[in-house]
């Protein structure tokens, strides 16, 4: 089991979703990752689509200003 992380706070649509998807695809079963993203479209949709694609969103925490952190695990 490994821990990864990804920062997409500087990305714009659609690369927020593209980078999140390609990053999640690298995970092996049991791995967790932390994704930093901004409020709005990324925060509304990255966790939703990750859940739809079978990942577990363990936690969403506010980091600072409009930046949030998602903790996601591949079951």
């Amino acid at each position, binding site marked *: 089991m490994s821990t990864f992380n990804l920062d997409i706070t*500087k*990305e*714009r*649509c*659609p*690369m927020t*979703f*593209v980078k*999140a*998807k*390609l990053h999640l695809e690298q995970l092996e079963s049991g791995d967790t990752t932390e994704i930093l993203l901004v409020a709005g479209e990324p925060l509304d*949709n990255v966790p939703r*689509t990750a859940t*739809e*694609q079978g990942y577990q969103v363990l936690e969403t925490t506010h980091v600072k200003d409009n930046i949030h952190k998602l903790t996601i695990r591949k079951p």
Partner: protein
Amino acid sequence: MAEQKKLSIISMSGDFDKVIAVFTLASGAAAVGYEVNIFFTFWGLNSIKKETGRKFLGSGFMARFFNFLLGGRRNLPLSRLNFGGLSPILMTGMMKGKNVATLEELFDASKALKVNFFACEMAMHVLGLTKDDFIPEVKDVLGVASFLELSKGGQTLFI
């Protein structure tokens, strides 16, 4: 019938801005779990040529001449205010400066996310092109009936 998470795009324009729209929608949709199909026809075929610059491709004098003038992905003109090909270069610079993905990045993302590329058989015939003139990611050469079958049950866009 329930709508599937499937997006099919008919890419007909060879304009830089419209091709950016094609690959933005394609990569974004693929990233959020859609099956994505792009059917490239007429000027849309320019964006999937192996040769990204100008080259005399195809069979027949007129086809070779046309394909030279049309060029590949590096020669796509802006739909307005093209200024002899200067504007797409300036636009790419502006996009990089604003941290927005460029056409090449969107194109690469679409390939990485396994967007399905298809070429139009009839337009290829008119322009004297064969499947070998396109990037290897082009899955198949199709006609209207096959594309309609493929896009059934999802959303279809014409760009």
